[in-house]
């Protein structure tokens, strides 16, 4: 009898542990480094919007660092592209994204890097790009840096000047400008589509000329 009780108890705890492990391991852990969490009203809005997505749990935003974490059911197999799309839709810009799968496997996004070769001719230019805040800055810089051939990009909120360096063999100011306009920011060369502009978060809706 004594042995039987021990066996039952052992089976119970083994099962409980397995269930617990299963429950824990059925979620992917996602961490996104979001740039430009300057405005609390928008940042809290991002958190609120994510909480409304079905399946997303444990949403947390660390305002100081811009680290935004949540969990998502593993069987949905969410991708980095899907996460970054959701972050974009909420008006933010994901700098780095990492998924730790329930299996322990880790996936990270990789930012494109332009290689400078012997044939490269590096040019520096300054262009006007309209914007308001830290969130704008993150979006503008990411868009510029996402253009193949761009080596560096710095945008100043006060002057609204974008300082870029790029390989003229791979790209030009016009292409960079068009890419920036695609994310909602008017430049001295290209005007953004009004629908895209209208979808920017409230704090990013700069005064249009």
């Amino acid at each position: 009898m004594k042995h039987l009780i021990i066996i039952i108890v052992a089976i119970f705890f083994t099962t409980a542990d397995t269930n617990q492990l299963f429950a824990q391991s059925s979620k992917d852990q996602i961490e996104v480094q979001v740039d430009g969490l300057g405005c609390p009203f928008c940042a809290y809005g991002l958190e609120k919007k994510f909480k409304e997505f079905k399946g997303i749990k444990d949403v947390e935003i660390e305002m100081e660092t811009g680290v935004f974490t949540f969990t998502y059911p593993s069987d949905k197999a969410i991708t980095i592209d899907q996460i970054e799309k959701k972050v974009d839709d909420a008006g933010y810009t994901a700098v780095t994204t990492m998924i730790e799968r329930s299996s322990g496997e880790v996936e990270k996004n990789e930012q494109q890097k332009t290689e400078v070769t012997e044939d490269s001719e590096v040019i520096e230019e300054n262009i006007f790009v309209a914007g308001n805040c830290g969130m704008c800055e993150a979006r503008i810089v990411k868009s510029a840096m996402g253009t193949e051939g761009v080596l560096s990009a710095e945008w100043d909120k006060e002057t609204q000047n974008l300082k870029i360096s790029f390989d003229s063999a791979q790209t030009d100011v016009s292409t960079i400008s068009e890419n920036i306009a695609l994310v909602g920011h008017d430049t001295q060369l290209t005007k953004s589509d009004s629908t895209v502009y209208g979808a920017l978060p409230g704090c990013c809706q700069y005064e249009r000329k």
Partner: protein
Amino acid sequence: MKIATFSMVISMSFLIGCSLSPQEWAHQRTIDLGSTTPIGLTVVDQHFWVADGDNNQLVHLDKEGKILFKEEGFERPMHITTDGKSIFIPEYGKDQVTIFQGKDKVKMLLTDSLDAPAGIHYNDGFFAIADFYNHRILYGKEDQWIRFGQEGKENGEFYYPTDVHIFDNQIYVADAYNNRIQMFDVEGNFLLTFGAEEKIKAATGIFVSNTQVFITDFENNRVLIYSHEGLLEQIIDRDLNSPTDVFLHEEILIVANYKGKNLMFYEQE
């Protein structure tokens, strides 16, 4: 005689000018709040209550600025108000207003649903609430409420209102991302707008005194001070760091700095 008349006119003009021009607000002291990130502020019995949005708590300080206690468990508390007994806390993340008294927390009963309430103000039995994602204002008490406004840029429309203040049967709204202040009567009829000329970037917090309207200009690190008619009287911009709220208590102006993590105090000179 001609000279005497001229001198008299000049003297009169000077005296009239002095009596009409408001006194300037000057910085007196700053209270450092440590890790607290103030979004909203109110005062009860000389004590300060600060809504700490990032840390989901309400912070209670004595008049010297010493933290007495922190009440946790709110979801993104925003611009708060008081009736002298309770603190009314709009919880942005919970879509509700919570009434906090002593240690009790009770959900405020409303006849309408909210989507991210960002500000509330109490005056003489009535409340006004800034309903951020619904781009509208609720005004009323108990089961008698009106609502006005919709998303837009025209007069009477809002683009993410963050704070409200009731004064003398008028409702003043910090129309955050329209970058302006709007004034309405208590039936929700539009009366006046101002602030556009100053190129505000995110009008986040508002307070109305007997003579002036104070508004925080979040991205520009400024507090703008207007007459009730919307004439700009003063700009405070020194050492402010992302101001989110402003409050006048016994002739002392208090500014809550979100990124500065402090309260700055001003008196008229």
